[in-house]
């Protein structure tokens, strides 16, 4: 889901670059509370794993269209929302600067969609679902699947917003057409994202449950102050 150069105009790309930079700085500030000697190498592994799986484009049911993991939900589950967003951002930076994937000028837009929006949407759902679902492998799998699926659709609509602000082709008012096409394609991609995320997280939880951030941080009955959703649900 990487935006290529020329798709969004320069000024809008620059605004999102500044926005993404500020958000990433905030993630570093908040993420440091989570980042200890144990989480730091784990976060490096999560970034490397997401890079690897992003190379694996899988076909979706629509002919001639593929999709790949974005990784926001996976990162949020394994290393938390702040460090997780930074993991996805590291992947996108390496891809843009070394592999020619996603324009360098478009980096702020891509980070906003996949690293920030995707991870934020995923973690809000993770925080909610892990509290209401049973603490079983099935409960964790459903949490991972649903949060991953929704995060991909949210990220795709981030692009639609950006295209509305600075798309280089006049769609003749047919932005809803683009929104619909993007949402449908990414609903299907989200199923793949959900399956990969659930499989990976359930496997890690089976081998080393202590390495799954969401299981450590989100105790069933304890309301976490960082998540407003829990307060609202009460």
């Amino acid at each position, binding site marked *: 889901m990487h935006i290529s150069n020329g798709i969004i105009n320069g000024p809008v790309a620059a605004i999102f670059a500044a926005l993404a930079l500020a958000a990433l700085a905030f993630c570093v500030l908040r993420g440091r509370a989570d980042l*200890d000697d144990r989480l730091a190498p784990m976060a490096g*592994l999560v970034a490397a794993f997401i890079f690897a799986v992003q190379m*694996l484009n899988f076909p979706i049911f629509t002919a001639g269209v593929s999709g*790949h993991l974005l990784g926001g939900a996976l990162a949020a589950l394994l290393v938390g929302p702040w460090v997780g967003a930074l993991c996805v951002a590291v992947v996108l930076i390496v891809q843009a600067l070394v592999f*020619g994937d996603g324009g360098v000028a478009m980096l702020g837009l891509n980070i906003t969609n996949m690293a920030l929006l995707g991870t934020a949407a995923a973690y809000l759902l993770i925080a909610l679902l892990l509290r209401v679902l049973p603490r079983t492998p099935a409960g964790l799998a459903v949490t991972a699947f649903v949060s991953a699926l929704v995060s991909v659709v949210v990220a795709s609509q981030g692009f639609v917003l950006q295209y509305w602000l600075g798309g280089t082709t006049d769609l003749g008012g047919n932005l809803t057409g683009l929104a619909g096409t993007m949402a449908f394609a990414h609903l299907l991609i989200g199923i793949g994202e959900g399956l990969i995320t659930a499989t990976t997280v359930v496997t890690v939880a089976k081998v080393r449950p202590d390495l799954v951030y969401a299981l450590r941080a989100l105790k069933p009955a304890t309301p976490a102050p960082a998540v407003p959703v829990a307060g609202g649900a009460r």
Partner: protein
Amino acid sequence: MSKRHWPFLLGGLLVALLLAGVVSNYASSHPDGLDSSLLKGCTVNADDEITGGSCPAQQAKDHELADSPLADYGVRGIGNDFLSTGLSGVLGVLLTFALGGGLFWLARRRGPATPAGPAGPDTTTASADPADDAATPSTGTR
């Protein structure tokens, strides 16, 4: 304490290297959801190249670093596609792990470990009380 994590890290890294180094060759080469959405209005041939019509994707410009030695997930100079893709994947995994792991290591919180999460101190106090209550009577009965 952190020593126990190395087997997991090495195992995870091995899986990532295998996925990027080998499995990546079986990935679909069709445009992804975003690219295909931008192709709406255009006709494409079997190689997914635009053959006619009008669509947003036609505005796409070349990547700034299209000449990078690893551009488009291949190693320049290696003719064998399988090897080229696989090697670029392996290099990417190692680079991402080194860069990400390095930056996270530099940014990590130093000093004595505290329980995870900003609610750390509160939770400890709350859970310490019942533990004390439970411990006191048991020592008393002895």
